[in-house]
C-alpha cells in the first residue's frame, strides 16, 4: 500500500484517534488499528511522530499487572514496525526501549526466560534486532557504556539461552542473529561505520565480560547434535570466532595498559568490568583452547560441508588475528586446517588450499617462530603416534591422519628441516612411513603370473602414456586397502624430498634399506618418491623461495641409489621356484606345440595346490618380486626426475632394466617395460626400440663383461636377445664384436648353458636374415618356407607350359614331336652349335661373381662371417643330447642357410659337414626333431639343390618314403584324435615338403617315382583330409616336373574315362586304373586330372 499521508500534520490527524484509543483500551484490536493506520503514513512523517506513536505502545507494555500474551506480541510487533521505519535518535529512548523489550521475555522475579509463547519470543528477538539497527549514528556507541553492562548481560544471556534451549530452529537462528547484532558484529550493509582503535578497545573491554559465557554457550551449541542442522552451527561458529578474534585480537591486547584505569561507574557495575591484562589473557586463552579443541574436533567431521567450510573461516580468522594471544590453540587450529586439505567436498578443499596459500604468502607459519615450533611439535607427536594409528584406525581414519601429516609438511615447507635435523624426529617419521608402506606379500598370483611370450619386447611399444607414471602396478598393503592412502603417502614423501635436506633423507633411508630386508621395499618406495619430490614432480609448492637441488647433485644422488638397487645382492633375487632349465622350457617359443605347453601348465599347477597356505618361501619370493618391481619403478622415476640428464646414467641403468624386461615373472617384466617407457619419455627417445638401438654400445659393454662371469649373470644372453630384436643393420659392427664374446663363451660352456646361447644365436641369425635380405632369392625362399599349396600355381610360371594347355592342336603335337626328336638327338650325343649357345645363355649370371680370382680373396662381409661361425657351432650342437637344444639348433641352422644362401663358397662346405648329423635328425630322432630337420632340408633344397640331390636320394628319400608307406595304413584307420598326434604332424610335414623339394632338387625320374609311389596311398579318401590335401600338393608339383608320367600314374590308379583313339587305325588304349566310382582314389585323382587339363 502506498503511503497516503506525507506530512506530519496529516499523519497526526489520522494517528491521534487510534493512539488515544490504544491508551484507553489496551486490546489487540486497537493495536491492529494503529498498525493499519501506520502503514498509510510515510517514513518521514512517522519519524516526526515517533515519540507520539511509541508512547501508547510502551505504555501498553509497561502497564503493571498480568497481560495477555497475544497483546504483548502485537504491541511488540507494532513497535518493531515503527522502529524499522524510523531512527532512534536519543540515547535515553534507546536504553529504555532496550530494557522494555528485554523485559518482555523474563519475569522480573527470575532471570530465566518466562514461559511465553514461541511467537512472542520471536517477536521480541526481532524487535531487539530492529531496535539495534534503528539506533541513529553515534548514539549506538554511547549505548555501549560500562553502565549498560548489567542490562546487556541479561539480554546476551537471554539470547544465548534461547539459542541453546529453544526447540524451534527459527527462534534459535533469530536469537543468534540478534546476538550478533547486539555484539556489533552484524554483517549487514546498513550498519554503522567502521570503528576506530579507541572505540574498538572500549567495546572490547566491555564485551570481554561476556566472553566466558558466550564462548561456553556457543561451544555447547556447536558441539551439539549434528541433527540440529548446519546453519545453527555455522552461525554459532561465526559469532564465536568474531567475538574471540575481536576480544582477543593481538592488535587490541598490545595496547592494554598493565594498570586498570578507574572506571567511571558505580561499584556494582565496576565489578563486572574486565581488564584485559596479561594474566587475564593467559587464563582466557587456556580456557578458550579447551573450547577450540572441542569445536575443531567436532566440526572437522561434521557431515555438512558448509559447517566444515565455516570451520576453515574460523581457523583463518583466529590464526590471523590472535596468533599471539591464542598461541596455545594454534596446534588444534592448524591441525583442523591441514586435515581439511583433502576434504571430500571440492569447495572445502579449494577454500582450504586458498587459506594455506594465503598463510604461506603471509608467512604466518614460517615467519612465526612459535607457530613453526608448534607445527614441529605436532608433526613429531603425529609421527610418534602414526604407527599406532596406522594399525588401529580404519581406512577413513588413516586417511585423515595422513592428510594432517601432509598438511603439516605443506605448511612447514622448508622449515621441515627443523624436524628432520633432530635424529629422534627423523627416526619416528621414517619408522612410521616404513610401517605404513608395509606390503602384503602373501598373494599367490604374483609368483605364478608368468610371461609366456618371451619376445614381447620386440613388438612395437604401446603408445606412451601422457603421464609417465600414471600406470602403476596394483599393490596390496598390509595396513590399508584404500588406494588414496598410498597417494597420500606418496605426496608426503615427495614433499619431504622437495623441502627436506635431500642428502640427509637419502642417507637415512638408504641406511634403512640396508638395515633389514623387512624395511627394504618400503625404503625403496620412499627413496623413489623422495627423488621424484626433489625434482619437483607433482609437488604443490606453497613457498616461493625454495631452492631445488642442482641437476648435478640430483644426478649424483640418483647414481648412488642406482648402484644400490642394481648391486648383485639387491637385483638378482630368487623369484621363482623353477630352475633355469625349466624356466627356459616355459618361455621357449613353441609354435603350435600345444602338447608341451599344456604339460608345463599342469606341472606348474601341481606345484602350488590352490588350497595350500602360502609357504614362507612363496612369501619371500613375492617379497623379492616386489622389491625388484619397486626398484624398477624407481629407475623410471629417477629418469623422470632427471629428464635428459638421465642419459648419462643409461650406461649403468639400461642393462639391468633390460635384463628384467626379459624376466619370466609377469610383474617384473611389466615393471621393467614401464621403467623403459619412462626412460624413453625422459630422455627423448621415440620408442623402446630407439632407446635400445641408440644405446646398444652401453648394452654391449654390459653383455660382454657379464659373459665373462656367466654363472653370476645367467640372464646375459637374454639381454643380448632383446637387444638384437630391437636393433638394426647399422649396429652390425657392435653386434659382431659381442658375437665373438658369445661364441667364445659358448665354446667354454657347451654343456651347461647351451640352451640360452642357442636362443641368442637364433635371435642373432633371425636379425641378420632380416637386416640383409637376399633380394635375389628372397621371393623364392619365402615361398619355400610358406609351403602352402594353391598359391604356387598362380604365381610360378609352370615350367612345361604346354602340358597344362587346355586344347591340344595339331601344331602342338608337331612341336612336341620336334622337340622330342631334338632331345633324343642330344641324348645320343649329337650336339649342335646352336644348342650349345643356348645352354650357355641359360647359365646363371651369378656364376662369374664367385669366380673373381681365387688369389685375392676379399674379406667376407661381417654378417657372412658371423653366419659361418654360428653354423660351425650348429654342426656340433646338432647332436646335442638335449632335444630342446637340438630343436633350437635346427631353427638356427635353417636361418644360417638363409643368410648364406648367396654365398655358396661358404655355405657348401659347411652344408657338407652338417649333412651327416642332419640326416641323423631326419631318419633317427624324435618326431619333433624330424619335423624341424625336414624344414631345414627344404630350405637347403631351395638354396643348393644340386648339392643336395644325390645325398637326399641316397640318405633320406628311402627312409622318408618308407615311413610314409608304413604309416599310411595307421592313418587310414585312425579316428579324429589322430590329427593331434606327432605321427600325423610328421606325415603332414613330409607330404607338404616333398613337393617343393622334388621341384627344387630337380630329382631324376626314378626318384620322382619313389616319391609318387609313397604318396599315392595318401590320395585315398580313407586318409585324413589334411593328408589328402598335402598328397595332392605333391602331385601338383610332380605334374610341373613331369606332367606326362604323372598323368599316366594317376590314370593307372583310377581311370575316369575310356580313351577313344583319334584315328581308327590306332590301337585303343586300356589303362590299368579301375573305372568304377567306388575307388577310394576317385575324388582326388579327378581333381588332379582336372588341374592337368
Amino acid at each position, binding site marked *: 500500500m502506498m503511503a497516503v499521508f506525507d506530512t506530519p500534520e496529516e499523519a497526526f490527524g489520522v494517528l491521534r484517534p487510534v493512539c488515544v484509543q490504544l491508551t484507553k483500551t489496551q486490546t489487540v484490536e486497537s493495536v491492529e488499528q494503529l498498525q493499519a493506520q501506520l502503514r498509510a503514513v510515510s517514513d518521514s512523517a512517522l519519524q516526526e511522530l515517533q515519540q507520539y506513536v511509541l508512547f501508547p505502545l510502551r505504555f501498553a507494555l509497561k502497564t503493571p499487572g498480568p497481560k495477555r500474551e497475544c497483546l504483548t506480541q502485537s504491541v511488540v510487533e507494532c513497535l518493531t514496525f515503527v522502529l524499522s521505519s524510523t531512527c532512534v535518535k536519543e540515547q535515553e529512548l534507546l536504553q529504555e526501549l532496550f530494557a522494555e523489550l528485554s523485559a518482555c521475555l523474563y519475569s522480573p522475579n527470575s532471570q530465566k526466560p518466562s514461559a511465553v509463547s514461541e511467537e512472542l519470543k520471536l517477536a521480541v528477538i526481532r524487535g531487539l534486532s530492529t531496535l539495534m539497527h534503528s539506533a541513529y549514528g553515534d548514539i549506538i556507541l554511547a549505548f555501549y557504556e560500562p553502565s549498560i553492562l548489567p542490562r546487556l548481560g541479561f539480554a546476551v544471556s537471554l539470547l544465548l539461552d534461547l539459542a541453546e534451549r529453544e526447540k524451534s530452529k527459527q527462534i534459535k537462528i533469530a536469537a543468534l542473529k540478534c546476538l550478533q547484532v547486539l555484539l556489533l558484529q552484524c554483517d549487514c550493509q546498513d550498519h554503522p561505520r567502521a570503528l576506530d582503535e579507541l572505540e574498538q578497545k572500549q567495546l572490547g573491554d566491555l564485551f570481554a565480560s561476556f566472553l566466558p559465557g558466550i564462548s561456553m554457550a556457543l561451544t555447547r551449541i556447536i558441539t551439539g547434535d549434528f541433527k540440529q542442522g548446519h546453519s545453527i552451527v555455522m552461525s554459532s561458529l561465526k559469532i564465536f570466532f568474531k567475538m574471540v578474534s575481536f576480544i582477543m585480537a593481538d592488535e587490541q591486547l598490545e595496547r592494554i595498559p598493565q594498570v586498570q584505569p578507574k572506571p567511571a561507574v558505580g561499584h556494582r557495575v565496576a565489578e563486572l568490568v574486565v581488564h584485559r591484562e596479561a594474566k587475564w589473557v593467559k587464563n582466557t586463552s587456556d580456557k578458550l583452547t579447551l573450547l577450540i579443541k572441542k569445536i575443531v574436533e567436532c566440526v572437522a567431521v561434521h557431515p555438512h560441508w558448509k559447517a566444515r567450510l565455516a570451520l576453515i573461516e574460523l581457523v583463518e580468522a583466529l590464526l590471523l588475528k590472535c596468533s599471539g594471544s591464542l598461541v596455545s590453540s594454534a596446534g588444534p587450529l592448524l591441525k583442523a586446517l591441514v586435515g581439511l586439505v583433502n576434504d571430500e567436498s571440492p569447495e572445502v578443499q579449494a577454500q582450504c588450499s586458498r587459506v594455506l596459500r594465503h598463510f604461506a604468502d603471509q608467512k604466518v607459519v614460517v615467519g612465526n617462530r612459535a607457530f613453526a615450533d608448534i607445527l614441529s611439535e605436532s608433526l613429531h607427536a603425529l609421527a610418534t603416534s602414526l604407527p599406532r594409528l596406522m594399525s588401529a584406525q580404519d581406512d577413513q581414519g588413516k586417511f585423515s591422519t595422513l592428510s594432517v601429516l601432509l598438511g603439516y609438511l605443506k605448511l612447514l615447507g622448508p622449515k621441515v628441516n627443523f624436524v628432520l635435523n633432530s635424529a629422534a624426529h627423523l627416526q619416528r617419521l621414517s619408522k612410521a612411513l616404513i610401517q605404513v608402506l608395509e606390503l602384503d606379500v602373501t598373494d599367490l598370483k604374483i609368483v605364478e603370473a608368468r610371461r609366456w611370450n618371451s619376445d614381447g619386447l620386440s613388438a612395437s611399444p604401446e603408445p606412451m602414456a601422457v603421464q609417465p607414471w600414471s600406470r602403476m602396478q596394483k599393490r596390496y598393503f598390509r595396513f590399508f586397502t584404500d588406494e588414496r592412502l598410498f597417494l597420500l603417502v606418496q605426496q608426503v614423501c615427495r614433499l619431504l624430498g622437495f623441502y627436506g635436506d635431500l642428502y640427509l633423507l637419502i642417507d637415512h633411508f638408504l641406511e634403512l634399506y640396508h638395515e633389514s630386508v623387512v624395511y627394504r621395499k618400503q625404503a625403496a618406495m620412499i627413496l623413489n618418491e623422495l627423488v621424484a619430490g626433489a625434482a619437483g614432480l607433482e609437488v604443490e609448492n606453497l613457498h616461493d623461495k625454495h631452492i631445488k637441488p642442482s641437476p648435478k647433485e640430483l644426478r649424483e644422488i640418483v647414481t648412488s641409489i642406482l648402484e644400490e638397487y642394481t648391486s648383485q645382492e639387491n637385483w638378482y633375487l630368487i623369484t621363482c621356484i623353477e630352475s633355469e632349465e625349466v624356466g627356459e622350457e616355459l618361455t621357449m617359443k613353441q609354435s603350435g606345440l600345444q602338447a608341451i605347453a599344456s604339460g608345463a601348465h599342469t606341472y606348474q599347477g601341481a606345484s602350488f595346490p590352490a588350497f595350500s597356505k602360502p609357504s614362507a618361501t612363496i612369501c619371500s619370493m613375492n617379497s623379492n618380486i616386489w622389491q625388484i618391481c619397486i626398484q624398477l619403478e624407481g629407475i623410471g622415476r629417477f629418469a623422470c626426475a632427471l629428464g635428459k640428464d638421465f*642419459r*648419462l646414467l643409461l*650406461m649403468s641403468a639400461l642393462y639391468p632394466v633390460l635384463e628384467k624386461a626379459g624376466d619370466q615373472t609377469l610383474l617384473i617384466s611389466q615393471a621393467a617395460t614401464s621403467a623403459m617407457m619412462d626412460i624413453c619419455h625422459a630422455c627423448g627417445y621415440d620408442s623402446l626400440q630407439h632407446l635400445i638401438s641408440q644405446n646398444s*654400445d*652401453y648394452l*654391449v*659393454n654390459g653383455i*660382454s*663383461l657379464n659373459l*665373462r*662371469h656367466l654363472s653370476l649373470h645367467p640372464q646375459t644372453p637374454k639381454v643380448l636377445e632383446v637387444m638384437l630384436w630391437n636393433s638394426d643393420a647399422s649396429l652390425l*659392427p*657392435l653386434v659382431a*664384436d659381442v658375437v*665373438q664374446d658369445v661364441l*667364445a663363451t659358448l665354446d667354454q660352456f657347451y654343456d651347461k648353458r647351451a640352451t640360452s646361447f642357442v636362443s641368442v644365436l637364433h635371435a642373432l641369425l633371425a636379425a641378420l636374415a632380416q637386416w640383409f635380405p637376399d633380394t635375389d632369392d628372397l621371393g623364392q625362399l619365402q615361398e619355400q618356407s610358406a609351403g602352402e599349396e594353391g598359391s604356387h600355381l598362380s604365381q610360378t610360371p609352370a615350367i612345361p607350359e604346354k602340358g597344362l594347355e587346355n586344347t591340344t592342336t595339331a601344331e602342338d603335337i608337331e612341336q612336341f614331336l620336334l622337340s622330342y626328336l631334338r632331345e633324343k638327338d642330344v641324348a645320343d650325343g649329337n650336339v649342335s652349335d646352336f644348342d650349345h649357345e643356348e645352354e650357355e645363355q641359360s647359365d646363371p649370371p651369378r656364376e662369374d661373381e664367385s669366380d673373381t680370382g681365387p688369389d685375392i680373396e676379399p674379406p667376407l662381409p661381417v654378417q657372412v662371417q658371423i653366419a659361418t661361425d654360428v653354423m660351425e657351432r650348429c654342426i656340433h650342437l646338432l647332436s646335442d643330447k638335449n632335444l630342446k637344444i637340438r630343436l633350437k639348433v635346427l631353427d638356427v641352422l635353417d636361418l644360417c642357410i638363409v643368410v648364406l644362401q648367396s654365398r655358396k663358397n661358404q655355405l657348401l662346405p659347411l652344408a657338407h659337414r652338417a649333412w651327416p648329423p642332419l640326416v641323423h635328425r631326419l631318419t633317427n630322432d624324435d618326431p619333433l626333431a624330424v619335423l624341424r630337420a625336414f624344414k631345414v632340408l627344404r630350405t637347403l633344397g631351395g638354396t643348393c639343390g644340386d648339392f643336395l640331390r644325390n645325398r637326399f636320394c641316397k640318405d633320406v628319400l628311402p627312409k622318408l618314403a618308407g615311413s610314409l608307406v608304413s604309416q599310411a595304413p595307421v592313418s587310414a584307420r585312425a579316428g579324429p584324435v589322430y590329427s593331434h598326434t606327432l605321427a600325423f604332424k610328421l606325415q603332414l610335414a613330409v607330404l607338404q615338403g616333398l613337393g617343393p623339394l622334388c621341384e627344387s632338387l630337380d630329382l631324376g625320374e626314378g626318384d620322382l617315382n619313389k616319391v609318387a609311389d609313397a604318396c599315392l596311398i595318401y590320395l585315398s579318401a580313407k586318409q585324413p583330409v589334411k593328408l589328402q590335401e598335402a598328397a595332392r600338393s605333391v602331385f601338383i608339383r610332380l605334374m610341373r616336373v613331369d606332367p606326362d608320367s604323372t598323368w599316366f600314374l594317376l590314370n593307372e590308379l583310377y581311370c575316369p574315362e575310356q580313351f577313344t583313339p583319334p584315328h581308327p587305325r590306332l590301337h585303343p588304349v586300356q589303362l590299368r586304373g579301375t573305372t568304377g566310382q567306388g575307388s577310394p582314389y576317385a575324388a582326388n585323382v579327378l581333381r588332379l586330372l582336372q588341374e592337368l587339363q
Partner: protein
Amino acid sequence: MAASPLPPPDPRFVLRGTQSAVHALHFFGGAQGQGHPLLLSGSLSGLVHIWSLQTRRPVAILDGHQGQCVTWLQTLPQGHQLLSQGRDLKLCLWDLAEGRNAVVDSMHLESMGFCRSSVLTRGQGKWMLAMPGSGSDEVQILEMPSKTSVCTLKPEADAKPGMPMCLELWQAESSPRPLLLAGYEDGSVALWDVSERKVCSRVACHTEPVMGFGFDSQKARGVSGSAEKALAVWSLDEQQALQVCKTHELTNPGIADVKIRPDRKILATAGWDHRVRVFHWRTMKPLAVLSFHSATVHCVAFATDGLLAAGSGDQRISIWSLYPISSDSSTSSLGHVEHREVGAHALA
C-alpha cells in the same frame, strides 16, 4: 671364502667403435675447466678418436693420416693442442680448443720405422721434439713450434745400434739440460745429452729390439720391454751411466708398450699375448694379469687419476680401475698396493 679364488678382474668398461686395431692411446686430462677427461685413441685405419670418458662415446673423430696407422698421440700442455704421428710419415698438430678439430700444422717425417716421438716442454709456449731422423739410426731434435732443427743425434760409426725404436726426452730436476733416452733395434738403451750431442751412456738390455720403455726421472730408473720374454729394469747413476739392475722373466714373449703410472707406484705392460700385466714399480712384484683382449695389446696409457687404458688389435679399448690413487701421494698408498694382490692368482 678364503679358498675360493677371487674372480679375475674386469675392465671398468670397454670402448668399442674404432673398427680397426688401436695403436696409440693418450689421456687428455680435461684441465682448464674443460670438464670431463677425454681419451684419445689412434687406430690402424688412420683415425684418431676422441672419447668422452663420461658418456663413453666418441665426441670427435680426426682424420688426418690418409688411412695410415696412427702410432703416437700427445697433447701439449698449453692450449688444446694435439700431436699425432702416423705411418703416412706425417706429424700433425691439431687444434682441439672449443670443439675445433683442424690440423694447424704438420711436419714430414723421414723415417718409416715404428719409433714414436717424444716431447719436452721448455716453457713460454716452447717445446722440444725428438723424432726419428732421416738416417735410419738417427734421432732428430727440433725446437718447436718454430720447427728449427736443434741437432741430429747419430750414433758413433762403430756402435751400430740399428734404428731407434722408442724415445723419451726429459730433464733432471737438478739441471736444465735436456736429455734423451732412446731404445734401439739391437736391444740397447742409450742416454743422450742433447746439448752436447753425445751419448752419455749405453747399455744392452735386450737381445731383441726395445719396443717400449717407461722412465721414472725421480728415481732415475727405467723399465723396458722388447720382443723377448723379459722386462729389463735399469737405472742411471750420478755419473749418468746406465746399468741394468735386473730383468724380470715373463711367461710369454713380446711387450709392445710399457707405462709407469704418474704416481710412480705401478706400471703396466702391453703384451703380444693379449694381456696387460701390472707390476709394482719399486719391487717389480707382479700384481695382476689383465686378460680381456682377444688380440695383441698394442698400447697402454695411464690417466692422472689412475685409470688405465689398453688398446688392442681386437679393436677394443679396455679401461681399468685397479689400485686407486690415494689422495695424498705419500707412501701410504704404496703399502696399500702391496696388501691388495688382486690379480696375483691370475699370474700364469
